């Protein structure tokens, strides 16, 4: 067991899988000579050479599509999209092609590839570089979308994604790269499509993914310590497929839920979770399901405005208190 950063966990996993399978290659902007915008691929060009670590022109549609075509012939590309905002340039290749190759041709071909990309705001990068648009991909059958929140999950889910024979969008987050956590020496691939109860509790369920799953755990710990509130935290880990069972099972136990998401509220991931709770735990609810989500604005640059727009431990704590208050009136 070692304590390493989320960044290191990603780097180590890429390296291990490249050593294990020569069909694995990395492709993306600035991943080689520059060693990656966020240094996930540092050192890999020197170790594996240009064939396995391929710097591309700024041409997302072109190189993502090329990765799909290479995957159709059995290679296993891992694409780095510098941020999820830039994935929009490749939307046609991801949604209309990667996601359709297996189904549209009756299972004759498939696209075993991973699209690694960070989302996230809070870095004062302004409206076009701070979005959380994983929902666009989680909406599409044929894609798988995973969103690890810890270094250990990052490793286990990246292993699973790289072993999978379908295109997997692997959501990272700018705010997570420097976070640290314990990672076992031997990590087994995670099961895609499964959520996890990362903190057991009995009073309320908080559901999050990626950065907000960590915030949820911090808030739950604080509430336990300060007020004796027992909050259960569900980390979705996978946005497609979505593990509704684990969410609903928790809410049936606690009777109330708050969803913590970095994306926008209207039509967001939380809307689907809330609908699932309504589907599966309607009779168990003691309060309306609450969502803590980003304010619906193009994210401003100025720090006070950016801070006001994004979900935080404070806003989540407020929503938990208000939900438990509503429950108290009911019970």
């Amino acid at each position, binding site marked *: 067991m070692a304590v390493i950063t989320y960044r290191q966990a990603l780097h180590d996993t890429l390296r291990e899988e490249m050593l294990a399978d020569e069909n694995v290659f990395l492709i993306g902007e600035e991943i080689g000579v520059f060693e990656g915008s966020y240094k996930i691929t540092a050192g890999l060009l020197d170790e594996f050479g240009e064939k396995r670590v391929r710097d591309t022109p700024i041409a997302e*549609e*072109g190189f993502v*599509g090329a990765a799909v*075509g290479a995957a159709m*012939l059995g290679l296993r590309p891992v694409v780095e999209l510098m941020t999820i905002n830039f994935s929009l340039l490749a939307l*046609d290749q991801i949604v209309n092609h990667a996601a359709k190759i297996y189904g*549209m041709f*009756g299972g004759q071909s498939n696209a075993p590839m991973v699209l690694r990309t960070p989302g996230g705001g809070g870095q004062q990068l302004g409206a076009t570089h701070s979005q959380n648009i994983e929902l666009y991909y989680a909406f599409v059958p044929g894609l798988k979308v995973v969103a690890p929140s810890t270094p250990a999950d990052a490793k286990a889910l990246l292993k699973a994604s790289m072993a999978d024979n379908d295109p997997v969008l692997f959501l990272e987050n700018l705010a997570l790269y420097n976070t640290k956590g314990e990672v076992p020496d031997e990590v087994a691939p995670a099961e895609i499509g499964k959520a996890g109860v990362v903190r057991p509790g009995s009073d309320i369920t908080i559901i999050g993914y990626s950065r907000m799953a960590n915030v949820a755990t911090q808030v739950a710990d604080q509430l336990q310590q300060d007020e004796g509130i027992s909050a259960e935290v569900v980390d979705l880990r996978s946005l497609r497929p979505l593990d509704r069972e684990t969410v609903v099972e928790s809410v049936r136990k606690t009777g109330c839920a708050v969803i913590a998401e970095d994306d926008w509220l209207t039509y967001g991931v939380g809307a689907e979770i809330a609908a699932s709770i309504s589907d599966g735990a309607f009779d168990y609810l003691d309060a309306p399901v609450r969502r803590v989500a980003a304010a619906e604005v193009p994210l401003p640059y100025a720090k006070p405005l950016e801070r006001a727009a994004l979900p935080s431990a404070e806003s989540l704590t407020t929503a938990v208190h208000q939900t438990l208050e509503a429950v108290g009136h009911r019970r």
Partner: protein
Amino acid sequence: MAETATRSKPTSSGSKSRRGGTRSSGNRAQQTQERAALGSESPEQLRDYFKQMSLIRRFEERAAQGYTQAKVGGYCHLNLGEEATVVGLMSSLHKSDYLFTNYREHGYAIAKGIDPNRVMAELYGRTTGTSKGLGGSMHMFDTDVGLLGGYGIVGGQVPLATGAALAIDYRGGDQVVMCQMGDGTTNIGAFHESMNIAALWKLPVVFVVINNHLGMGTTVDMASAESELYKRAVAYRMHGERVDGNDVLAVNEASGRLVEHARKTGEPAMLEAVSYRMKGHSVVDPAKYRSSEDAQAARAADPVAAFRDQLLSAGVLDEDGASEIEQTVQADVDAAVAFADDSPHPDPSTLFDYTYATPVANDSRRLPADPVF
């Protein structure tokens, strides 16, 4: 091979075509001359080209008929008028070479080697179709003959084909990828990104632009600032050239040269084949936007009739031989229709069989009226 686009071939049938005189010629010397115009191809090969072109012509006519009978659904884009281009291109590929096409691909599927029965069955949406009935007219696929997809989104196949060439290069294989597209495709970003990548990384892919003068109802001149499309290769230091798409032999020669160069050197190239689309964009399009002169030119350029005349004039084929071929392909198409009609529809219970290649937990198998819980 030159780095830049240098050659210009005739843009349509007629003036400089290799095509010879009329079939009424009984003059021995003229027949010899006509034969010489057909180059060094064997009589068997020439007759086979004619047979393949005739097969595609009849097949597409029956596909249109199937559409009007509501046996074929969705969109249905035909290769009518492009038979010489299709056969010329496909004859230049090895079976192990890969082909990516757009959605106007029935003829390519047949000429690359798929049984017409399975092509028609795909149009009919049956389990015996090239994509088990899941793809339809625009999405034919067959690994065995190297057809790695017809694609319905304009230009979607161009990055994919480039990536397939990357995989060949990665593994050190000797296959070549051909990427077919229409004239309208040369204006989208994916085309330019892929041309750049293919040239930059020296990938064995031949980009073939079928310039049939029309992207749906928009003429090339309306859509492209440079309407001599092959010249776009210059920007990527790629060889580009134009060929008369109504001349099966010219297409085969140019395509074969570029394909073999790509095989030998790994360098990409671009070929523009100029042809005519005889009918509308798809079966339902009456093409009212076309001028009568243009429509007449398209009919006059009919490559199947012209090649038939050429073979008769050269003595490679006589009228009986031509009729026999035409009857054979008619029977093949009739058989394809019967095969398609007799084939089973996919069972609704198979709806979720092809969403994911690796089975996954919590995969939704919900039908529209099913509750989530």
